[in-house]
Every structure is written in structure tokens, then in C-alpha cells.
């Protein structure tokens, strides 16, 4: 259960090596160590992630999970909830990759769509069913400001996040009567493995800064949040710029 001051007792991280996801787990654990399930592809990186959280006092278990195999998602979610309620679930997996390849090479495009959009929707369906039975919980999906307005530089990624964003925004309404708070978080540029070597955009964030936004949203049962907060107003303006103007911006 999430207590009156917003401490969860358990957290399921889908995308078990996500730097933002791990920072969220660490931030919660600083107030109160918790039970964490890291769902991801087994391997050294997942093991290292578990070690990192155990050092903070949390109890960690691992769950094999592949976003590209939707047929397994119901089973993965059932396993995650087998040992008790999941108070917070974080949908934090995704790929960015070579955005030029993404719109010129079919296989790359399919991979991006399957992981970022199809996978997010299929776990969303499985989670919704399980969380409705539980009658409480927080479900956080990591969207992106890239989904708010398509840009020449990353529009395949942007299109997958736009799809994810719409799905989880709708799910917010669908799960409201069941005591489940769904939160869509839209970070701007974040310094992670995913963006390594890329030129940082203005208002760039560290995973820890995004984690603070996620944790605050869970504690206050916010249904949407931007990271950083003022990005909301920046994007609001950018969304409404005429194309000839938007096209010339260095974003």
C-alpha cells in the first residue's frame, strides 16, 4: 500500500535497467526501503542494477522480460504480482537508436514501434487488468516531449511516444474508478545511455531530476507531469508554432 505521506512498499520496474527507473527506486528507498522487481533482459546489466538497489536497503528480485514478445506479457505481469501487491509500476523501457535508420530502414522502424509503442500497450493491458483486481496503485508511463510535436530529427521515436502517451492518458481515465492513478511523465532531453553522444537540448535533465518529478507525481497522485516542470509551457508554445517557424528552430 502507498501510505498517507506517499511511501510505496513495492515497485515493479518494466525496463529493469532504465536509468530513470532505477533513480526512481532509489529516491523512494531513501524515505523507506521497498521491495523492487526489476523486469528486463537477464544479463550483467540487470544484475548490476539489482546490486545498486540492494545497496540502498531495498529487497530486489529479477524477472525476465522482453518488450518485443507481447505474448509473454500477461505471464510476466502475473508473476510480478504473485508475491503481493505492486504499489507502483513504472513503464520505463524504450529505444531511441539511429533516427535516420528509423525512417529509412523498415526493420529499424518496426523495432522502435514494437518496443516503444506495441510493448507499452501490451504491458499496459496486462497491468490494467491486474491493477483493477488490486483496487489501488500507481502506474507511471515514461512518455517524452518528442511525442508532443514531431520533429525532423526524431519523428519515429516521437510517433511511438505519441502513441504511448495517448494510450496511457486514456488509461488514466479508465482506471480512475478502480483506485489506480495512472501518470504520464514527459521528460525533455535526459542524459542517459540512450542519448549518449548526442547534443543536449535546452532544459536537459539528469535521470535523478526526472526521478524527483516521478516520485513527486506518485506521492501527490498527479496524472501528468513534465520534467523539468516548466517544459510544460515550453511545449505548449512549441506545439502551436506555425510550421515555417518551427522548422527553423534549432531543436
Amino acid at each position, binding site marked *: *500500500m*502507498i*501510505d*498517507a*505521506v*506517499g*511511501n510505496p*512498499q513495492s515497485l515493479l520496474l518494466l525496463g529493469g535497467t532504465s536509468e530513470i527507473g532505477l533513480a526512481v527506486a532509489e529516491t523512494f528507498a531513501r*524515505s*523507506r526501503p521497498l521491495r523492487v522487481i526489476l523486469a528486463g533482459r537477464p544479463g550483467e546489466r540487470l544484475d548490476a542494477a539489482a546490486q545498486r538497489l540492494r545497496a540502498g536497503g531495498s529487497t530486489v528480485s529479477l524477472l525476465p522480460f522482453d518488450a518485443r514478445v507481447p505474448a509473454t506479457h500477461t505471464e510476466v505481469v502475473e508473476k510480478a504480482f504473485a508475491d503481493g*501487491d505492486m504499489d507502483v509500476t513504472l513503464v520505463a523501457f524504450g529505444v531511441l537508436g539511429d533516427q535516420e535508420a528509423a525512417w529509412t530502414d523498415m526493420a529499424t522502424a518496426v523495432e522502435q514501434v514494437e518496443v516503444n509503442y506495441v510493448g507499452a500497450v501490451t504491458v499496459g493491458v496486462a497491468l490494467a487488468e491486474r491493477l*483493477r*483486481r*488490486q*483496487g*489501488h496503485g500507481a502506474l507511471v508511463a515514461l512518455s517524452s516531449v518528442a511525442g508532443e510535436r514531431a520533429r525532423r530529427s526524431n519523428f519515429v521515436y516521437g510517433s511511438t511516444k505519441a502513441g504511448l502517451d495517448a494510450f496511457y492518458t486514456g488509461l488514466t481515465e479508465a482506471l480512475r*474508478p*478502480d*483506485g*489506480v492513478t495512472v501518470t504520464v511523465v514527459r521528460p525533455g532531453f535526459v542524459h542517459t545511455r540512450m542519448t549518449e553522444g548526442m547534443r543536449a537540448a535546452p532544459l536537459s535533465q539528469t535521470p535523478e531530476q526526472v526521478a524527483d518529478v516521478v516520485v513527486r507525481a506518485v*506521492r*501527490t497522485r498527479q496524472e501528468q507531469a513534465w520534467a523539468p516542470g516548466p517544459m510544460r509551457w515550453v511545449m505548449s508554445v512549441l506545439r502551436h508554432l506555425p510550421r515555417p517557424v518551427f522548422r527553423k528552430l534549432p531543436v
Partner: protein
Amino acid sequence: MEREQGQPRLLTGWGRTSPSAATVVTPREPGDVIRAIESAGPRGVLARGLGRSYGDPAQNSGGVVIDMTTMDRIHSIDTAAGTVTADAGVSLDTLMRELLPHGLWLPVLPGTRQVTVGGAIGSDIHGKAHHVEGSFGNHVLSLDLACADGRIRTLTPDGPDADLFWATVGGMGLTGVVLGATLHVNRVETAYFLVDTDQEASLAELMARQAVHDEDYVESAAWLDVVTTGKHLGRGVLTRANHATVADLSGKHADPLKFDAPHLPSVPDVFPPGMLNRVTARAFSEVWYRKSPTRHGVVQNITQFLHPLDVAANWNRVYGPRGFLQYQFVVPFGAEDAVREAVHLIAGSGHVSGLNVLKRFGAGNRAPLSFPTPGWTLCVDFPVRSGLNELCDRLDAVVLAAGGRLYLAKESRTTADTLQRMYPRIDEWRKIRAATDPTGIFSSDLSRRLAL
């Protein structure tokens, strides 16, 4: 009875934190309760009364919640014996109104009358009279409990099922569903109090005043200021009273047994977060302190003396949408330093609390999870905001070190480990619960959160 129909309902406690969804059923007779128990799913069932517990003890996320307020008949009042038999869903407000014309009075009344008999037993509630009357369970002569096996058992404090009786008193609804009870009640001449008020300029003076002559009064409690820092930290107003006799009223009240409890309209749900801040809390505390100079022998009515909060319905809305929590602990006599330390921690924390009560408890009872034990109890309430977790964790440490405990009816954020250490008899209670409900049909958000 309607079951598994319509949408689940979102429930919270009085503090309006941690909402969760449950299927709410409304029984008309004991058979409906039994059917709800027998058809319990994996998330179990739980009885709920008027939802005045502050945290999550009357919520059962994903499961069934039995709204007992529809079972609200008073079956009999025996004036000669001083007993009343009532359904679990009867509120203490209703009960008081019915008892007063007979010259009868409930010995244990908490800070609000809007609680049910079932809830009063489940939380083993206490009031300002604890040092004389003990807690609610002390006055239950028998109770009917719908158990996990679908049977109804009549339990008495010293009967063959005394273990289950005392596990149910203070058992937070986790041993079964209380269907009704027979209670012992007191005799009174009037519905008024003869009140002595003492205004004390510091915490030390307040505690010193409270520590003497408490037993001369049937009701005793102090309000204290935990916002104003400096030498007046912990200043307060001690009010102690006995029931007024007809002679005390000196003919000023035509009907001495009239249920005299005026109230205002409901508070609207329009308050933004942050209404209660340092400025408003200081102003409130100043007014509250100044309005009660030392005066002895004043006649007051029920609302004035016992239930100032019942004057306005839904007063919890003042705390805004994020809700608030109550923090109530007791530490043994001799651990006065812990009370002082707690007041200092609160005053220095930046978190504000307006409605603070300090009281001395008398002897506890036999119930393993009953809260009151001999000592000082302090109750404060905070609007939920950032940093409150850390303050409460620090208070937990002070309470634990002093050998004290938290009140489950108000608990909303501690850890399972801390609670376990505060209630040394919890395993004894768990054994009784496991024997009567081996599969854990009766469960609540509280029981999940604290691994009761």
C-alpha cells in the same frame, strides 16, 4: 442485498489520504453479512462504519466492504440495569439521543459522536473519561460476531470465547464482523457539564496542573499550542469536568436531559492545499488559547465541552485535497521527557498542527491490540506535505524509545516493524486471529500495509 453490482467505490479514511476501490455492499440483516463472508474473493471482506478512522483501516482495496451503517436498530434499553443492546451500525450520536431521555449516558465518547458501535469496538476507542472509565471495550457486556466460518458467535469478556472477545476489541475488524452489542451505560441527571478551565502558559505548567487532581473529574483533557515557539511552547488550556446535576443548572435549562448539541452547516469542498500554514495556525492557536481563560464551575453543553468538532460536518475538507494525518501516541508515566521532545520536534519542524490534545490515560484493558495504556497521550494533526514523512519517522523513534505506541485508528504511515515493536502482544492476537480466520478472509488496507 446488492452485491457485485455497479462500479467499485473509492473509499478513504477521514484524513482523505490513500484512496482505494472496493465493492461496497449494504446488508439489511445478519444473513446478508454471512453471505458476503461466504462469497469472499481473494481480497477478502471488511466491515466499515462511518469512516471516521483517519487512515486506511476501513478500506479493503479490490475486495468487499460491508457498509454496516444500514444495520442501525437499537433493540432494547434497560433503564434499571443500565444497558443498551444495539446493532453495530448505530452511531454513538443516535445512541446518545435515545439514551438521554432515560437519564443514561455512554461512558466512553471520543472526539466525535459520528462513529458506530462496531467501529468503537474494533478500534477500542477512548475519550476524555479514560482515566476513570477506561476504553469502549470495558463497557461491552456481550457482542455478536459473524466469523470466517459463516457462524455467528456471541462473545462475552469472561465467557468461553473470551480470547476472541478481547481480540475483537481493538482488533480493527480483522477477527470478523461485529453485528451488534450490549453495552453498559451510566446514569446522569443532566446532559450538561460543570467545567473547570485552567489556562497554563507553558508545557511544564500544563503537565504539572494535569498531573494532580485528575481523578476528581470524570472528563479531562488539554488542548495545547505546538506552533508558538519560545518560552510559551506547549502552553495550553486544560478543561476538566463532571456531569452537572439538576441543582448545578439552577433552573436555567428547562429540560436538563435535552440533547443540547448545536451544529453549523457542512463545510464545502473548496479549500485549496496550504490553507493551514504557519500564519493561520499561529493565529488559530492564539485565539484558541486566549478564548479560554482560567474559570471554574461553568456549565457547558455537549458540543461546547465534548465535541467542538461536531459543530461542522465534513470539517476534514479544510485541509485541502491532499488530506491530513493524525499522529497519536501514548508513552508511559515517567516518560514525560518524550512528550516534551515530541512537542519540540513538532514546533521546530515547520509542520503545523492546530488541534492538539494532551491527556492522561488510566489503566488499559485485556485486549492485546488496545491502544490505551497508563501514561500521557498526545494527538496532533498535520496537513500532508513534503517532509512530513521525516518528522513522523523521528516522532516514531521518540515514542519507541520511551516504550510507547501509536493508535491504529489514526495510523496511516508507519512501518510494519515499528508497529510490531510497539505492540508486544501482537503475536498473541495473531494466533487468535489465525485460529478463527485461518485464510485471512477479513483484511484491510491497514492490515496489508502493516502486515498485521
